[in-house]
């Protein structure tokens, strides 16, 4: 056995995770010490600093790319991208939650702690190149979201949402794990690079196909892709609104990162029609079901299924075109959806009383700022130019067309035309209907303003000058796809999984 200890570089390459855990623990420890009134501000502030520190440490981490902990994690542009993305989402979430938690009278300490710990899992998901580590971090991210979903404990819907998410989530995770076991059985390794090398040398064992299928079940569930999307509306409807904004983007982005690694880096065999069909189903089911919803949270839940479908379209495309499109889309979707949910959670008010479409009537009058920002997010979700949503769709569809997926593109385009209808419905209601009952709109606190400004800026930035972002995602996608070859060769000398001899 090799007795070496991890060196400094190893720690630098998981620095964001370390920093986030430390802040999480600090919150946990401080929680009982501060009195309840102050805890909201103090611990929330600590969480905020934690995410900021996480961003800084990500920057430090980005300076030393490479493998760490004996090929457990890999730091490259790809993982840096997703680190920044999920941490930024959490930052906005914390800004939004500041007010929300106070209005809902929920205890703060564990909430912020769970967010930070959950982030550790999501960050690791994006940099892990070992299925076991991916599994554990997936569980960290999932379990913390299960708990967050049930945070409004006095509410029956919230705990129901939590229960449904938990039961079905564990169910799906078991499938994923079985897939990991099969993959281990098929290739003798759980390291993605080694798997990739095994799958791309000679005939692919049948067991690997089964393994891929099972892993797709688990990951498809996490990203809410049809036919494993079915939990989404129920869970999103019941969970606290800011948390929905979070869990429809951050864990999803991390799960997409894993899917990208598994599907593209390992060059999963026989995936094409599977993804094709899943993309079509997700887009269509999501959009069509959203048409008749009148609960805004539920509507956005269906919309998030549809968006997962659009992202899957890019998975069906050629890797070098699809991977950057996926990355861009997750970022754009995160910006607009988190923003939209920030508005929704502000309006929801005590006990989330105001979440139906009817409650949005006349919002254009009563609160032009909220209505205006929500409109921009919705416009972006529709995919109208000069917003991030447009370019995201544009790249996805152009990637698909350049890979000769004409029908898939046409179905996607038709779907996004259908989708325009229900987003528009919200805009119409906000500006063109008189409020039937008085819906109190609380003053917008500073933190929420900051959250809205950040998401708005990101949405518009990605829509107006997407050039830099695009260059970045292309480079990192390039690294991801090349990693397959380079690291597989490194593997030979530096055995990731020691073989016990008998």
């Amino acid at each position, binding site marked *: 056995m090799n007795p070496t200890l991890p060196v400094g570089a190893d720690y630098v390459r998981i620095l964001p995770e370390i920093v986030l855990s430390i802040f999480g623990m600090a919150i946990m420890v401080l929680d009982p010490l501060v009195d309840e009134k102050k805890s909201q501000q103090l611990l929330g502030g600590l969480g905020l600093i934690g995410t900021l520190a996480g961003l800084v440490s990500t920057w430090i981490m980005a300076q030393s790319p490479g493998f760490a902990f004996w090929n457990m994690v890999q730091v490259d542009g790809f993982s840096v991208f997703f680190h920044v993305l999920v941490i930024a989402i959490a930052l906005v979430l914390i800004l939004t939650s500041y007010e929300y938690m106070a209005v809902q009278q929920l205890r703060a300490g564990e909430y912020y702690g769970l967010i930070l710990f959950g982030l550790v899992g999501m960050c690791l998901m994006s940099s892990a190149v070992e299925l076991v580590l991916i599994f554990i971090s997936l569980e960290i991210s999932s379990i913390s979201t299960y708990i967050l979903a049930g945070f409004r404990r006095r509410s*029956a819907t919230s705990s129901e949402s939590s229960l449904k998410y938990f*039961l079905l989530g564990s169910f799906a995770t078991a499938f994923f794990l079985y897939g990991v076991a099969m993959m281990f059985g098929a290739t003798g390794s759980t390291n993605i690079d080694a798997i990739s090398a095994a799958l791309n040398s000679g005939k692919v064992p049948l067991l690997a196909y089964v393994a891929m299928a099972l892993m797709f079940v688990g990951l498809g569930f996490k990203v809410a892709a049809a036919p494993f999307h079915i939990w989404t509306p*129920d869970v999103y409807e019941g969970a606290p609104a800011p948390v929905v904004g979070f869990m429809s983007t951050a864990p999803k982005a991390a799960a997409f990162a894993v899917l990208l690694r598994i599907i593209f880096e390992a060059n999963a065999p026989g995936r094409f029609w599977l993804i094709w069909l899943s993309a079509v189903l997700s887009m269509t089911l999501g959009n069509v079901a959203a048409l008749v919803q009148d609960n805004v949270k539920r509507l956005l839940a269906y919309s998030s299924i549809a968006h997962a479908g659009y992202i899957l379209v890019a998975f069906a495309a050629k890797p070098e075109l699809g991977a950057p499109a996926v990355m861009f889309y997750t970022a754009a979707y995160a910006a607009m959806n988190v923003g939209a949910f920030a508005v929704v959670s502000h309006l929801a008010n005590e006990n989330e009383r105001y979440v139906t479409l009817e409650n949005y009537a006349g919002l254009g009058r009563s609160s032009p700022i909220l209505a205006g920002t929500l409109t921009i997010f919705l416009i972006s979700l529709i995919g109208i130019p000069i917003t991030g949503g447009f370019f995201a769709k544009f790249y996805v569809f152009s990637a698909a067309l350049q890979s000769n997926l004409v029908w898939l593109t046409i179905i996607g385009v038709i779907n996004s035309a259908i989708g325009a209808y229900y987003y528009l419905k919200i805009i119409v209601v906000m500006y063109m209907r008189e409020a039937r009952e008085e819906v109190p709109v609380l003053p917008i606190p500073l933190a929420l303003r900051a959250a809205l400004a950040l998401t708005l800026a990101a949405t518009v930035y990605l829509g107006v000058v997407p050039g830099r972002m695009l260059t970045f995602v292309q480079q990192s996608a390039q690294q991801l796809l090349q990693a397959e070859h380079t690291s597989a060769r490194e593997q030979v000398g530096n055995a990731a999984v020691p*073989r016990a001899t008998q």
Partner: protein
Amino acid sequence: MVPVSYYLILSGILFSCGVIGFLIKRNIITIFISIELMLNGVNLSFVAFAAQWQHLSGQVFVFFVMVVAAAEATVGLAIIIAVFRTRETLNVDHVNLLKL
């Protein structure tokens, strides 16, 4: 000498029993027990494959799965308690406020 596939089939049977349990049981706790059964099935696969490939890492995975299962159990049972508090029922068919 026993064929590895025997172990794998046993593992598959346990996994399938777990899935069926999820589908037919009404008590939330029993459903959760079914999930544990699924995980146990997977564990057997890991150990069997480890033996086949002569890779000890397969056995280490089992260890991790157990940790995860324990953590899941803690949280899951807490969620079940929370649901029971608000709904006074453990029947999953009655937990359907959120729908359509």
